[in-house]
């Protein structure tokens, strides 16, 4: 029997997911022994035509990382869906939009203006912005160049194609990937929609600082790692840092906590949560110990970007999917 065929594709992503694959180190040899990698733009020179020429369903598993932001991504993921038996959303961006999903707070024009005109370090005297088509002279020939269209917003993978499994994390640790790969190769496939490689317990449950968490958390202030340094060896929530461990899936090995950083939620929601940010807000707010509106407002004022913190990896998959825009809305963010 021939080896299972694996494809590896990236959409709007940073390359960190590929990194987690490379981090397998010596185990990579086992991976190459067990599967054939048939498509992997980050490392191998195959083109879209090569995938098109494969028979339908001939790829056993496609791992797709990154959110769907360009028409090119859309085309490729639909193609891979057709050619693959199993499609796995790999990493936070692909599963819920990830950090690029926070761009759903803005429309395409705002993003392009910001990036190409407004950023203080950008000098763009001729106001040049990317266009879908442009004509240039190359060696005396008039050549038309084109770029893929930017979609109206960033879509998590399962909003554009059918997704069989999810591997969480930003990026998934190589251990999580290894576990997931073993599950997929074992032939005993879990039900569709399962999260592979991570547990079902919360990060808090597996946190090395869990013992130092008081039974009842009562916070009188919220601190930020931007301007204070957390104490070692004490529950970060108890210290007043917004740690999302209680609502986040564990399985990451508490990497951030071990580096003295609060959890930002990259392993996504626990089972049963329908909107990660809503749940996180509910949790954090309920442990603020004030009972008066004014005092509460003061505490909440101390954090400048609540959506950025509570929806860091989840905005595109949230109930509202991003900022809702209505006609005539003046573009100004509070």
């Amino acid at each position, binding site marked *: 029997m021939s080896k299972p065929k694996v494809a590896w594709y990236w959409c709007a992503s940073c390359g960190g997911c590929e990194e987690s694959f490379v981090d397998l180190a010596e185990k990579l040899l086992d991976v190459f022994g067990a599967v054939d990698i048939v498509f992997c733009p980050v490392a191998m020179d195959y083109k879209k035509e090569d995938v098109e020429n494969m028979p339908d369903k001939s790829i056993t598993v496609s791992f797709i990382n990154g959110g769907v932001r360009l028409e090119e991504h859309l085309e490729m993921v639909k193609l891979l869906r057709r050619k693959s038996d199993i499609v796995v959303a790999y990493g936070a961006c692909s599963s819920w939009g990830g950090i690029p999903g926070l761009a759903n707070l803005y429309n395409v024009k705002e993003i392009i203006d910001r990036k190409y005109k407004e950023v203080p370090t950008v000098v763009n005297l001729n106001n040049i912005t990317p266009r879908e088509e442009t004509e240039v002279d190359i060696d005396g020939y008039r050549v038309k160049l084109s770029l893929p269209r930017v979609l109206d917003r960033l879509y998590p993978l399962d909003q*554009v*194609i059918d997704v069989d499994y999810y591997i969480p994390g930003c990026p998934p640790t190589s251990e999580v990937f290894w576990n997931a790969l073993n599950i997929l190769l074992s032939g005993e496939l879990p039900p569709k929609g399962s999260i592979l490689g991570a547990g079902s317990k919360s990060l808090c449950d597996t946190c090395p600082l869990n013992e130092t968490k008081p039974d009842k958390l009562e916070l009188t202030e919220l601190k930020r790692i931007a301007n204070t340094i957390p104490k070692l060896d004490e529950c970060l929530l108890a210290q007043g840092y917004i740690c999302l461990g209680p609502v986040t899936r564990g399985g990451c090995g508490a990497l951030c906590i071990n580096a003295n950083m609060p959890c930002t939620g990259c392993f996504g929601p626990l089972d049963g949560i329908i*909107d990660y940010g809503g749940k996180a807000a*509910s949790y954090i707010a309920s442990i*603020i110990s*004030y*009972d008066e509106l004014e005092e509460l407002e003061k505490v909440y004022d101390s954090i400048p970007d609540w959506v950025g913190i509570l929806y860091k990896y989840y905005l595109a998959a949230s109930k*509202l999917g*991003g900022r809702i825009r209505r006609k005539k809305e003046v573009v100004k963010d509070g």
Partner: protein
Amino acid sequence: MGDRYEPIIVVFACNWCSYAAIDLAGTSRLHYPPNVRVIKVMCSGRVDPQFVLEAFADGADGVIVAGCHPPADCHYQNGNIKALRRFTLFKRILARLGIEKERFRLEWISASEAKKWVEVVNEMVNELRKLGPLKNRVEVRRLVEA
């Protein structure tokens, strides 16, 4: 008359105070607009911000969370305080997500305040009529597969 925009308002009302007030409004034959869809919960502290997001995503134009007056009216001692803490924060998130502040209200309505209930509903319906429907992105969320 028929094509006038009618906003839909989802109301989470606590069993002990606000729902009793809504009942009282009915038995007292007070009139209020039929735009509300009332869901009884045991306590305003039970209402998770996720429920509110789901209501908006499913087509509500406005949401009211109603409970007993703070500090001490809550049947469960401090459920209303939990609601206050949660929704004070949650209002900030809604604002950032582009939901106008008129679309979400946290109201304290005691069992005897049927009149207040009627006022709140009247006021909100008028405000939402002016705002118009919440054109929800969720409808267009899933790109159609080719």
